[in-house]
C-alpha cells in the first residue's frame, strides 16, 4: 500500500463496487475538514486506468462538497476484488459499528466477490454480531436488494431487524405505499402495523396492496385535516381491528358501556389484559382524605347501579 496525493477528479466515484455506506450526513465531517483537513486518507485501488474508491466514501464526498482537492489516499495494489474489499472491511470493523444495512451490504459484497456461503456464515457473520445461520444470510442478502428509497427510511428510522424483515416480505409496489404510513410511527407501532398488514393479507389471501387501497384506508389518507401522524395512527388502528375483530368488538363494547354508565374519567377501570382473567382493575389518584372519600363515594354509587352488572359479562 502506498500513499499518494490525488485530485478528486481522478477518483471514479460511479464505480461503487466496494461501497457499503449510504445515507449519511456530511455536516460534521465537513466542519472537521474545514478546521483540520483530511487526516485519515481514504483507500483506493486501480482497475484498468480507473481509480476506484475502496473505503472512505463519507470522507471523499465531504471533500467533494467543499472541493478539497488534491487529497491524500492509500493505494491498494491488489487485483482481487475480494481481497481488496476485505481491506476496507477490516479497516471499518476495527473502528466502528455497522448499521443493519451496512451489514447487509457487506454480506452481499462478500458473496458477490466469490466468498463461499459457509465461510460467510461461519466466519464473517459472527464478526458482524449476526448468528451463524444460512437463513439469516438469506435475509440480509434480501435486505441488500431493497429499493434505495426504502433503504433510506430503514436507515433514517433505524428500523429493527424484525421490522425490516417484515417490510422485505412485501412487494416493491406495496413498500412504496407503506413508506409514508410507517415514517411517522414509533418503532413498536411500525412493527405492529407491518405485522398486522402481513397477517391480514395472509389470512384472507388478499394482497397487501389491495388492503392498502381499500376505501377505508384511502378515506383516511384523503382526510385533509389529519396530520401524517394521525393518518398513520388511524390506519394502524384500523388494521388492528381487522386483525383482531372479536377482541376489538369486546373492547369497543366495554368502552361504550363505560360511556353509558358515565364512568368518571378520574377513576380508571380496566379489564385484565385481553379479558383473559375475570378480574377488573380500578385506579385513581388522591392527595388528601377529601379526594379519597370523593372517589370512594363515586365508586360506591357506581357499584350500587344495576347497569353495572353488564360489566361482568366481559369476562
Amino acid at each position, binding site marked *: 500500500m502506498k500513499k499518494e496525493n490525488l485530485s478528486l477528479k481522478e477518483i471514479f466515484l460511479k464505480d461503487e463496487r466496494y461501497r457499503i455506506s449510504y445515507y449519511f450526513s456530511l455536516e460534521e465531517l465537513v466542519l472537521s475538514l474545514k478546521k483540520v483537513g483530511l487526516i485519515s486518507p481514504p483507500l483506493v485501488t486501480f482497475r484498468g486506468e480507473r481509480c476506484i474508491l475502496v473505503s472512505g466514501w463519507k470522507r471523499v464526498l465531504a471533500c467533494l462538497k467543499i472541493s478539497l482537492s488534491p487529497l491524500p489516499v492509500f493505494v491498494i495494489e491488489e487485483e482481487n476484488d475480494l481481497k481488496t474489499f476485505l481491506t476496507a472491511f477490516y479497516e471499518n470493523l476495527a473502528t466502528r459499528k455497522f448499521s443493519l444495512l451496512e451489514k447487509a451490504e457487506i454480506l452481499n459484497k462478500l458473496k458477490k466477490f466469490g466468498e463461499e456461503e*459457509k465461510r460467510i*456464515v*461461519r466466519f464473517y457473520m459472527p464478526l458482524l454480531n449476526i448468528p*451463524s*445461520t*444460512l*437463513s439469516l444470510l*438469506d435475509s440480509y442478502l434480501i435486505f441488500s436488494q431493497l429499493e434505495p428509497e426504502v433503504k433510506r427510511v430503514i436507515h433514517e428510522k433505524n428500523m429493527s431487524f*424484525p421490522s425490516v424483515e417484515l417490510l422485505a416480505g412485501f412487494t416493491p409496489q406495496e413498500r412504496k405505499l407503506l413508506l409514508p404510513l410507517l415514517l411517522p410511527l414509533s418503532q413498536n407501532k411500525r412493527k405492529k402495523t407491518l405485522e398486522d398488514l402481513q*397477517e*391480514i393479507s*395472509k*389470512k384472507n389471501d388478499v394482497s397487501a396492496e389491495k388492503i392498502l387501497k381499500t376505501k377505508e384506508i384511502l378515506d383516511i389518507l384523503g382526510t385533509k385535516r389529519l396530520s401524517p401522524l394521525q393518518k398513520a395512527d388511524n390506519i394502524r388502528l384500523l388494521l388492528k381491528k381487522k*386483525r*383482531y*375483530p*372479536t*377482541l376489538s368488538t*369486546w373492547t369497543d363494547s366495554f368502552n361504550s358501556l363505560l360511556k353509558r354508565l358515565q364512568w368518571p374519567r378520574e377513576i380508571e377501570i380496566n379489564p385484565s*389484559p*385481553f*379479558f*383473559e*382473567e*375475570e378480574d377488573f382493575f380500578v385506579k385513581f389518584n388522591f392527595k388528601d382524605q377529601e379526594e379519597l372519600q370523593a372517589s370512594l363515594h363515586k365508586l360506591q354509587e357506581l357499584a350500587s347501579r344495576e347497569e353495572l352488572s353488564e360489566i361482568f359479562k366481559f*369476562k
Partner: protein
Amino acid sequence: MFNSKYFPQRVYIEKGSLNFPLTQRVLKNIGQVPTEVLEDTTSLLENMRISRDVIEQGKKVLLLTSQRGEFIKSCPCTPGYIGCNYYIINLDLNCPLDCSYCILQHYLSNPLITVNVNLEDLWSQLDVFLKRNKERILRIGTGELADSLALDHLTEHSINLISYFRDKSNAIFELKTKTVNINNVLKIKPARNIVIAWSLNSSKIAQEEEIGAPPVIERINAASKVSERGFLVGFHFDPLIRYPEWEKDYREVIKKMLETVDPTGIAWISLGSLRFPPSLKAIIKKRFPGTKIIYDELIKGKDGKLRYFKPLRIELYKKIIGYIRDFGGEQIPLYFCMENEEVWRDVMGWVPRGKENLEAYLSFPLDQSKIKLIY
C-alpha cells in the same frame, strides 16, 4: 394402511453409548443406514445449526446418546393455568413428524432425533420415583418431547416400558402418538394401568399441518385395534384449531372416533387449543409459509403464550365437548391441557382444586374412589 416408518439418513452414536443393549437393538433394527461413532456431538451440532432449516436437517439424523441427568421430569405446564400433575420420561427427544405448530421447534436446542440408550438408569430412577410417591397415583408418559411410538420399530420402547409399568400399582403409564406404529404394542399383554393415546385433529388440519403423520382415520383404526387388544386408549384433541368449517370437520372426526372405538375403553380425552410462545410464530412463518393457523385471533395469555381470545376458546371447547357427549362419550373423563379456572368453570361446569385434584380425577383406571370434584 399408512406405512411410513421413520428411518434416518444417518446414525451417530456417542462413543460412550455404543455398548448399551438399546444401541445394539436400534442398530439391528435399523438395517443399512450409515453409522458413525462420535467422541462428542459439538461439531455435528455446529454444522447442523448453520443450515437453512436446522429442524428439517435434524430430523434426518438419529443420535444415540446417554441421559446424564434425570429421565423423569414434571410436565412443564404453564404459569397461571391449571396443570394436571403429569410426569414425563425423556427417553427420546424430537420427532420425525413435522407438525407446523409443534412446540419442539422452539423448545429443544438439540435438533437431532435423539434416543437416550441408558435404560438401566431409567429403571433405577423410576424405582426410586415410584417408591417416593407411593401414596399417589402418578400419570407418566413419554409423549411430551417426542412421539412415543414414532421410533418404536427401532427402539421397542413400548415393550420395555409396558413390561416395567404393568405391575406398578401407583402409576398410570401413557404412550402418546400420532403414528400407527402399533405392532409391538399389539404383541404384548395389556394391563389396566397402561393407556395408549392418540393425538387427533380434524382431517384438514392433519393433512395440512401434521406433515408425515398418518391420516386421522388411520389413527382411529389403530386405536380401535389397540382397544380391542384390551388396552385402555386415550385421545388428545390438542391443538384444537379454528378455521372456516372447523365445527363440521371436528364433529366428523369425533363421530368416527366414537363409532370406531368402544367409549368404555377410553381412559380420557384431553382438549387444548392452539397456543405457543411468540418466538415460535417466526419459526412457523419461515418453515410453513402456507399455513394460516397463526393468523387467527391469538392474544398473549397470562403465561405469555399466544392463544385464542378467551370467548373463541370457550366456543371451541363447548362445541367439541358437545360432539363428544352427542356421540356417546358422556362418561369419558375430559380435561383441559393448560386452561384457566374461568374456562374450566364456564365449559366443564367445575374447576379442579389444583393439580392434585385433577391427578385424582384422571387416576380412575386404577382407583375410582379418588374422584373428588367441585361442582
